[in-house]
């Protein structure tokens, strides 16, 4: 049987739509900004992300097969109900994977590169991790196989989710119809997710359905009065793909060497955690932002104009 990989099938579409977005932006038909080195970094990250997954591919497949051998039920790939079920279950799994990838530094170290561009365009979608296999987040999908979904079914659904999330990395589409915005992840919702404004940090973790963010309290709509500023809280000072891929891992290692007794905090605390609280976390940035919103005007006037 020939393998079915949605991502491989969609690759020509990725290339054609990036071309389309650039050309349409060039003639000012749509809004999009592309900086040459930034684009190169994103695409090189995407190119080598496939290769970087190969060393652990065997382990991932073996784990999936082992889990399937110990499954609770046997679910047929031919069942439409099973496909509906895997759609929802995979999507909620993705939500928690994505939330974990933002809220705990060990997994953020793998995911940070996807957020490291100061741009938001279709090439940003391709700025994929090189260290996802090592981070082990693929383990989160194993319970689906233990439940009885065939590993191939889980892999296909993961691929469909990844392909869906490609088109939402754009400023060319402002808003989708209201009903669509209410249910699905959209360019507007995902712009918020990529923004570094304190108000927008750690919001909209959705894969395909935005309903999970609404259910679990992490939804934030894009506001017309606050334009998204993209990138990281502390942006990278380089376009070097090696530094893009590994800087946070190196940062963790440096912190552990500096202060080994705080190893658990360095590894599994929120990004920006430090023993003395001297660094910025999303929570501290949000708190400071909220405090500034309620600050009396005379205090504001003393700030940098």
């Amino acid at each position, binding site marked *: 049987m020939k393998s079915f990989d949605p991502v491989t099938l969609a*690759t020509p579409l990725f*290339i054609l739509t*990036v*071309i389309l977005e*650039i*050309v349409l*932006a*060039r003639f000012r038909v749509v809004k*999009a*900004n*592309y*900086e*040459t*080195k*930034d*684009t*190169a970094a994103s*695409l*090189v990250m*995407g*190119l080598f992300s496939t*290769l970087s997954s190969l060393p652990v591919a065997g382990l991932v497949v073996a784990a999936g097969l082992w889990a399937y051998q110990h499954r609770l039920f046997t679910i047929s790939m031919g069942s439409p109900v099973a496909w509906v079920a895997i759609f929802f279950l995979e999507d909620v799994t993705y939500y928690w994977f994505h939330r974990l990838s933002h809220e705990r530094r060990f997994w953020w170290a793998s995911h940070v590169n996807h957020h490291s561009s*100061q*741009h938001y365009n279709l*090439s940003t979608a391709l700025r994929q991790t090189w260290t996802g296999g090592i981070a082990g987040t693929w383990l989160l999908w194993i319970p689906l196989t233990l439940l009885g979904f065939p590993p191939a079914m889980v892999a296909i659904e993961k691929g469909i989710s990844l392909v869906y999330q490609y088109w939402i990395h754009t400023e060319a589409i402002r808003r989708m119809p209201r009903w669509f915005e209410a249910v699905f992840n959209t360019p507007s919702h995902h712009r918020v997710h990529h923004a570094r404004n304190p108000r927008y940090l750690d919001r909209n973790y959705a894969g395909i359905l935005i309903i999970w963010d609404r259910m679990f309290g992490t939804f934030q709509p894009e506001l017309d009065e606050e334009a998204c*500023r993209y*990138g990281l809280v*502390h*942006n*990278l*000072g*380089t*376009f070097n793909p090696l*530094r893009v891929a590994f*800087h*946070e891992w*190196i*940062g963790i290692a*440096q912190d552990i060497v500096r202060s080994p007794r705080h190893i658990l905090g360095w590894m599994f605390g929120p990004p920006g955690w430090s023993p003395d609280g001297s660094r910025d976390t999303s929570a501290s940035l949000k708190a*400071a*932002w909220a405090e*500034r919103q309620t600050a009396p005007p005379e205090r504001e006037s*003393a*700030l*940098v*104009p």
Partner: protein
Amino acid sequence: MTPTPVRAQLAGRGRTPLNQALFTQLAFSGLAVAILVGLAAWASIAKSAPPLDDDRARRILGEEFPGKTLDGLWVAVDGMGALAKSGGMALVLCRLGDGFVARQIPWAQALAASFKDGRISIDLTDVAAPRAVIALPSWPPKGPQKNLAA
């Protein structure tokens, strides 16, 4: 016995269908990347990023370090960066592509930066942004710093 593809691969006898497909896919993907990067360069659709002046540097520093007061501000002669003093800290702004990278370091660390050929090179002690290079007429600043926060 005819060697299987796996045996041939292990024996290093030519390319198997698997690694040939991988190689072909990688080659085409590499070509596509080159074309897309070339197209992005041709399109010239980066964000507008005029050189920094005092006002623009203040605005960006205000966004990057909200709530910080500026005791002194030095904007690069080429507008590609800026350095500000805020209490005991130095706020560093450095151009990257069509955007800026900001970091906060102890003021003493900024004062200790090497100055050569009209540029200061500041060690930011950060693997994600190791060094900032800013073109200034002189460094360190001489005499009392003018208060630019007013």
